[in-house]
């Protein structure tokens, strides 16, 4: 398989894994959110994310099958349910524990902010299918970003209790934000061939938005801190194995099961 095709497949898997893993984390709030409306809102966001993940997995599967005439063909389900932890390329931010409602909202904001500007760039990708998925997804992500921004402001600029919880959430999550903008080699390849996003540019947009929302939320952005990375290359936190154990249980225990 040509080198740039491998990079494109890895890139699609990376984008799909980000969406799938965050979808799974958010879905754990189902039945536990502070009110029924919020329960429905967060599960709707999860649903959007799984749709985006599925579109990227289906495209990755198509590319893998087209370029691997001899091997067994794969489907989107294989890619989601039968890969091992070191094959997952999601950013660590998506696999961090939910914490309280504030931490989940902050994680959603940090991620949706990243996804929003990412898709804005990918709409112009030279790869038609990546551009089409981005075009489809950005409308959904717009809702997610606005909704989570409002929650960060509401809680950050809320009561002393909610404010102190948000300060804690910022401390917990901030070390994982740097990885979003540290390009993996497949991201650099895809940028060079005109199909991927420019993370330098993305970082600027993300920072401006984060600045705007944090200042409205009376939260301060931490100074320079250690950057936790490795997720894009399959090196994950201790959270990831229990997560996959739950996510993949059915297909591992009952291979090929359908319902």
């Amino acid at each position: 398989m040509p080198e740039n095709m491998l990079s494109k497949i890895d890139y699609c898997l990376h984008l799909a894994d980000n969406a799938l893993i965050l979808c799974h984390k958010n879905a754990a709030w189902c039945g536990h959110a502070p009110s029924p409306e919020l329960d429905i809102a967060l599960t709707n966001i999860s649903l959007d994310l799984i749709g985006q993940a599925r579109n990227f997995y289906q495209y990755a599967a198509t590319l893998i099958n087209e370029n691997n005439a001899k091997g067994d063909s794969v489907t989107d389900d294989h890619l989601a349910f039968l890969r091992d932890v070191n094959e997952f390329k999601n950013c660590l931010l998506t696999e961090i524990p939910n914490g309280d409602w504030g931490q989940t909202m902050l994680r959603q904001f940090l991620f949706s902010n990243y996804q929003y500007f990412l898709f804005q760039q990918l709409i112009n990708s030279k790869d038609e299918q990546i551009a089409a998925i981005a075009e489809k997804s950005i409308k959904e992500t717009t809702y997610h970003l606005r909704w989570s921004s409002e929650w960060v402001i509401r809680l950050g600029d809320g009561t002393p209790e909610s404010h102190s919880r948000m300060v804690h959430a910022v401390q917990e999550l901030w070390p994982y934000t740097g990885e979003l903008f540290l390009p993996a080699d497949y991201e650099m390849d895809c940028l060079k061939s005109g199909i991927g996003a420019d993370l330098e540019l993305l970082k600027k947009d993300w920072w401006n938005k984060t600045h705007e929302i944090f200042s409205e939320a009376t939260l301060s952005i931490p100074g320079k801190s250690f950057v936790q990375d490795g997720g894009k290359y399959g090196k994950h936190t201790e959270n990831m194995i229990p997560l996959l154990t739950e996510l993949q249980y059915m297909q591992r225990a009952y291979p090929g099961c359908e319902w």
Partner: protein
Amino acid sequence: MDKEEIYKLLEEIQDPEIPVLSILDLGIVRDVVWTDEELEILITPTYSACPAMDVIRIHIQMMLSSNGYKNVKVTQVLSPAWTTDWMSEEGKKKLKEYGIAPPNPKQQVCNQELFMAAEAVQCPHCDSYHTHRISEFGSTPCKALYACDQCKEPFEYFKCH
């Protein structure tokens, strides 16, 4: 074989989640094309994760094959992305009769402005505009929850997208 006949058959296929709407009312059938003995129907999802798409695909296959069309292929296209502007006027009328407020004709919510006032949505039961939004997410990705301050009934709004 003529296109009109195909569209007439497609008109009979309902959206599984909102059965008063046909898939044509919803605006998700993008085109019907013939290529060398093969009939291809192009459809586009309302939302990335629209759970109805797989069912709709099967229904199209069944409807056409039971009417004598062989070699039917249903292809999903993502671009241009579906918008509520593609819903037919007939579809909007049917939605309202069904008790769901149809999408406003002008896109009012697809922007980044925070804490904006909820859209003015007309109550499908009593026609009052004296309504308020309960949540911008609802029972399916395409709907938001509203309540009417006039007749006090809650209702769903097919939100702009």
